[in-house]
């Protein structure tokens, strides 16, 4: 089966005020991909993500989701499109005045007609998927960083999104928790069939889960390469890309 394009980004520019960060971004994310946005700090990864999830208007260009342009759409329509995204923010971004259960239940209560019992059970199910069964009544402040991140993932999945966005999923996690989160992302992708976009510079995690990527170069201010990171590390013609993917060490030392 030929891959179906899920997200198509055309001629997108990233800018902060008058400072141009990236120019002419063109890439396609296929359905079922785990797509990594890579690059060194300050290259505009997070800005690109913000433009993809409707938080920041692009300086130029647009992103097409299933053939529908995000920024050309009316604000209400854009809201409706964004609602089909699940987004995991860097620090979880759980609402601190709500319990975990309420955090997951809030979008369900707002956007579905489910009964209170169904919403409660669904919230417990989502927390169970990320290994937080029985933690519904805890407040985010009572949890460790890794648990907060997983709870954030449970909330991101609340409405069974088509596309999951992750901002630095492994940042601040120990290697084992980070690995477990990677496994979880893959398992969810395989079973729910959703598309995953991650912003990351955690190499282990990129190699483990991503099957497609784009590399934003801070110096040239454009995307210099893209594709499967496992291939890029050996075959990229750009020294910056190879250096990034090998931490500047020889290829053999890393793989």
């Amino acid at each position: 089966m030929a891959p179906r394009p899920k997200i198509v980004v055309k001629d997108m520019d990233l800018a902060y005020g008058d400072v141009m960060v990236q120019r002419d971004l063109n890439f396609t994310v296929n359905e079922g991909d785990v797509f990594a946005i890579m690059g060194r700090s300050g290259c505009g990864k997070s800005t690109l993500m913000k433009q993809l999830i409707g938080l920041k208007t692009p300086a130029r260009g647009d992103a097409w989701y299933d053939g529908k342009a995000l920024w050309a759409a009316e604000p209400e329509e854009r809201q409706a499109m964004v609602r089909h995204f699940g987004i995991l923010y860097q620090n979880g971004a759980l609402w601190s005045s709500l319990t975990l259960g309420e955090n997951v239940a809030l979008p369900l209560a707002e956007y579905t007609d489910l009964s209170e019992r169904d919403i409660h059970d669904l919230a417990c199910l989502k927390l169970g998927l990320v290994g937080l069964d029985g933690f519904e009544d805890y407040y985010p402040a009572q949890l460790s960083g890794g648990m907060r991140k997983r709870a954030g993932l449970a909330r991101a999945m609340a409405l069974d999104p088509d596309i999951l966005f992750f901002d630095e999923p492994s940042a601040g996690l120990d290697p084992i928790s980070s690995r477990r989160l990677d496994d979880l992302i893959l398992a969810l992708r395989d079973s729910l069939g959703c598309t995953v976009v991650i912003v990351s510079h955690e190499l282990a995690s990129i190699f483990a889960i991503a099957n497609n990527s784009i590399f934003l170069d801070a110096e040239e201010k454009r995307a210099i390469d893209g594709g499967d990171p496992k291939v890029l590390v050996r075959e990229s013609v750009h020294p910056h890309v190879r250096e990034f993917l090998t931490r500047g060490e020889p290829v053999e030392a890393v793989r």
Partner: protein
Amino acid sequence: MPDSTTRQTSSPKGYARLERIDARRIAVIFAGSWRIGAQVSSTDDIVALIRGGGIAEVVVDGKDLSEWDSTLMMVIRRIEAACKESAARLDCERLPSALRGLLRLTEEHAESIEIASPPSEPVTLAERVGDATHRVIDACSVFIEFVGEATIAFWHFCIGRARFRGSDLGLVLQQSGAQALPIVALISVLIGLILAFVGAIQFRQFGVELYVANLVAIAMLREMGAIMTGIIMAGRTGAAFAAELGTMQVNEEIDALRTSGFDPMEFLVLPRMLALIVMMPLLCLYADALGIAGGALIGVTILGLPWVEYWNQTQNAMTMSNFLIGLSKASVFGVIIALSGCLKGMQSGRSAAAVGIATTSAVVVAIVLIVAADGLFAVVLNMLGL
């Protein structure tokens, strides 16, 4: 993977059918669309049947499903829970493999992490009263401790050993001084107007409307200038202090100061306290002047009193003692606002909600203490005959 190519009807339907395999075994067959927003048939009776006992095995079958999401998982989890309760076996082999994978995830990830359970609320009245008393005592001792630390920091400043950045002090001076002028001006002119109107009604009965000048001058100098400035600054600057320090607490900035060898009392609290000790009397002076001007406006225009006479009368009423009492009150209020704002900010919990609570309580504590201190001033000054 859920099949999204099925026909899209306006309200897709999901069915659950119960079949008896034999006396002790049943099959639950799911068909159609089991998605959020679809009309799905109720499975409560199936769950109740399993719970009722007498069933040894439940087979769930999903071969007729067209599409599914968490809605179906939720229902299967309910059946699973019922099976566990009545010791029946659950056979999931005929579910889509992706669904089985997800169900397995919920089990294998369920690790038991030992963390403190949520604090249980005290139940009996005695416990609750005891708990509240403890909290009040704790809060008092923390406040006294904080005042003590602030005093030590102030002493260090006096002997020139306090460490803080002069530019911080400058910034707080600007924020709590110059930038507060418009709101202080507005409120004090209005207070002057109000006092003049209130006085005018009473004094007119005795034909001594000129005494409005005395009323406005004495009230502004001695009481209203200081107390209104205090309340404005508690809401404006005290709240800002609490929110700022609270957010610094959330970001671990205060911890970073401590570990870098800076005393937060000197580095954060002292400049704020100094700024308000300096600025409050100045703002109070400004409020006094504008309040008197506001009173004069009414006296001259609406009551028709002559300019010169009103001014002379005001000058007579403005005694040095009234003036100094007002200014010293303002300084004390400044210390109260800075201390309660900083204390609540430093004590703030590490979440957004906690910063909100800290800010609220900083303003409430500051206003209560300002009014209480004003009462104390009144009693003491009365005893001293001033």
